[in-house]
């Protein structure tokens, strides 16, 4: 009953005119960011953080969450019209969505994408509402050892699942943790790796890293593309922006299945929307009576993946809000935003700030309705954004990144660092080192080291504290499995044919 009251009060917060406005601004920016190539949800949220400093934390977080789930809607537009996903999770949509557009059904592809996203997004938030409190109550029993092993599991899972090479994922994770060790060690008061630079004493801000590695690096890649001359022309929206009865009949099942699959995968650390949409696509192809239509414009190949990558965002909010552990790059930046507003996500948030957490969750219901309106009748307006020349767009993103970073501390050192991380992100992309594990470990490092040292202090330095309880032992086991499996699976595959 108490939870029910909190949910109702949450709607009171979400429906306040100021918060409705920020929900709208957030989902609008999200849609634009999703449509435009060159800047993803992580960098957009990071760039918005300085703008939200003066705001009430609830309003600021509602706006940033709007950007996060709004990008998923916008990302499908470019996937369908120019076969270039606006964000990574729309990659599967680009296969059949673009083919539908080529067959003169661009309107139907965009419509089913928006409807599927709305249904899945709303179902995802319902599931988040139902899951949040039980999980938060369980997490309240966690001590420092359990917290440390939980974060260890999140990092190993993300390291293993990001990119093609698990070793590079691990390397990226370690580099993130190393960056986080720069600054004054809060427990001993000693300086670590500051090299005598005063600005380094407070550590390297995660915004600097995120803006550099996500926004600036993406701009460098985009400008390089212009330099070498490779881009697809945008398709015009053809056909009515609605679907036929037959198309709806074929899409219903994939939307339901995609919603459930996306939410469950979203809860797991590391998996994310791209894997959710990939699994949804392969599931629909397997279940279809006409699998040969996939890749040639099957509407199921748009409806399922779009639903999966939208409910994934609600699933990803579950560990972030209830455990304080983000499962990917964008939620890691969201966690950074919480911390910069002086709020620690986790189980205590539901006890200490129910207005904020339920206001945020309830705003997602409203945001999804707004997104449906923005992405159906107004889609023609947004599509015009695709015709902005990249040669104008990319330089503007650099200027926004510079302004956003400088606005935080007014530090020139941070601008040089943004450039450094931009180049590093560009190099990482060239050599296929995934960036999300670095950002995630950077955000988690502080609390992870604190939990590690607290657990050892409480146990008088006995390292068995990390396997002394059932929860922490299980998490250590899962961490080891998630690290080992990617290395073992290819070997098992190699051995099998020889046995045959």
């Amino acid at each position: 009953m108490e939870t029910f009251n909190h949910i109702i009060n949450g709607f009171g917060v979400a429906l306040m005119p100021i918060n409705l406005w920020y929900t709208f601004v957030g989902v609008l920016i999200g849609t634009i960011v999703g449509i435009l190539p060159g800047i993803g949800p992580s960098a957009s949220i990071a760039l918005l953080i300085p703008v939200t400093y003066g705001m009430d934390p609830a309003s600021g977080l509602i706006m940033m969450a709007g950007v996060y789930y709004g990008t998923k809607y916008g990302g499908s537009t470019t996937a369908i019209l120019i076969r270039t996903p606006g964000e990574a999770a729309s990659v599967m949509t680009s296969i059949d969505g673009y083919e539908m557009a080529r067959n003169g059904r661009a309107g139907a592809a965009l419509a089913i994408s928006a409807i599927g996203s709305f249904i899945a997004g709303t179902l995802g938030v319902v599931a988040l509402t139902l899951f949040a409190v039980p999980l938060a109550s369980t997490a309240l029993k966690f001590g420092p050892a359990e917290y440390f092993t939980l974060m260890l599991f999140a990092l190993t899972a993300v390291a293993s699942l990001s990119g093609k090479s698990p070793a590079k994922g691990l390397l990226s994770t370690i580099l993130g943790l190393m960056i986080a060790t720069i600054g004054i060690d809060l427990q001993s008061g000693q300086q670590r790796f500051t090299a005598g630079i005063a600005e380094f004493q407070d550590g390297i801000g995660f915004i600097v890293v995120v803006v550099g590695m996500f926004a600036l690096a993406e701009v460098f890649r985009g400008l390089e593309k212009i330099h070498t001359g490779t881009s697809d022309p945008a398709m015009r929206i053809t056909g009515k922006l609605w679907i036929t009865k037959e198309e709806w009949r074929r899409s219903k099942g994939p939307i339901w299945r995609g919603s459930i699959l996306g939410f469950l995968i979203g809860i797991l650390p590391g998996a994310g929307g791209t894997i959710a949409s990939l699994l949804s696509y392969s599931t629909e192809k397997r279940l279809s009576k006409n699998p040969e239509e996939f890749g040639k414009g099957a509407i199921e190949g748009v409806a399922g993946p779009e639903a999966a990558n939208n409910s994934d965002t609600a699933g990803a909010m579950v560990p972030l809000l209830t455990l304080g552990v983000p499962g990917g790059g964008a939620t890691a930046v969201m966690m950074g935003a919480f911390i910069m507003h002086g709020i620690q996500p986790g189980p205590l948030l539901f006890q200490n700030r129910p207005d904020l957490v339920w206001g945020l969750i309830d705003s997602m219901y409203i945001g999804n309705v707004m997104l449906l309106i923005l992405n159906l009748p107004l889609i023609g307006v947004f599509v015009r954004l695709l015709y902005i020349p990249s040669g104008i767009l990319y330089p503007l993103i650099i200027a926004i990144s510079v302004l956003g970073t400088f606005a935080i501390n007014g530090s020139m050192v941070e601008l040089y660092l943004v450039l450094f991380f931009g180049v590093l992100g560009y190099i990482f992309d060239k050599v296929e080192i995934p960036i999300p594990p670095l950002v995630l470990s950077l955000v988690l490092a502080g609390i992870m080291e604190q939990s590690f040292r607290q657990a050892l202090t409480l146990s008088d330095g006995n390292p068995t504290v990390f396997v002394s309880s059932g929860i922490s032992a299980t998490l250590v086991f899962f961490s080891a499995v998630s690290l080992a499996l990617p290395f073992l699976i290819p070997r098992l595959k190699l051995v099998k044919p020889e046995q045959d």
Partner: protein
Amino acid sequence: MKSDKFIVLATVLLAAIYWFATEQIKESLIGDPIGPKAIPRLLIIGLLIAAFLLWLETLAGTKAKAREQASNQAVPGDSSAPEGPKGIRGYFFIAAMVLSTLGYFFVFNWLGYAVATALYLFALMTIFNPGKSTANVLTATGFSLGSYLAFSRFFGVQIPAGVLPF
């Protein structure tokens, strides 16, 4: 991949530098059983493990390629082939981008945000959006002045005014 071998070497080198820097940290064990060096030391082990695993992956990749070569007698699209002019052009491109952005940062305080940004944007737009000078000038100056006024007046952020009187 050829670059993976360089990553392995770079990681080992980084581990050595990080180890050296870790040893310079002053110890203070009051109320802390492990001290400020413990986590960096664990990270050095982690770095070396990552380098070792990547080396194993590189070896496995080389063996797989050798098998493929033996069965096909030819390897189309060999990733270890020397880079063509496009790859080299990419390096020059990124170097030019870094230098121009450094130049922008050098004049950032002196000229002020609005003027420095307008010049930087106009230069980039002239290169990447050629033949549209009017649109480039209007966008560069409009964005720079608009964002300067919005942030300095509306959000109250301290941004260098430089040569501008306001």
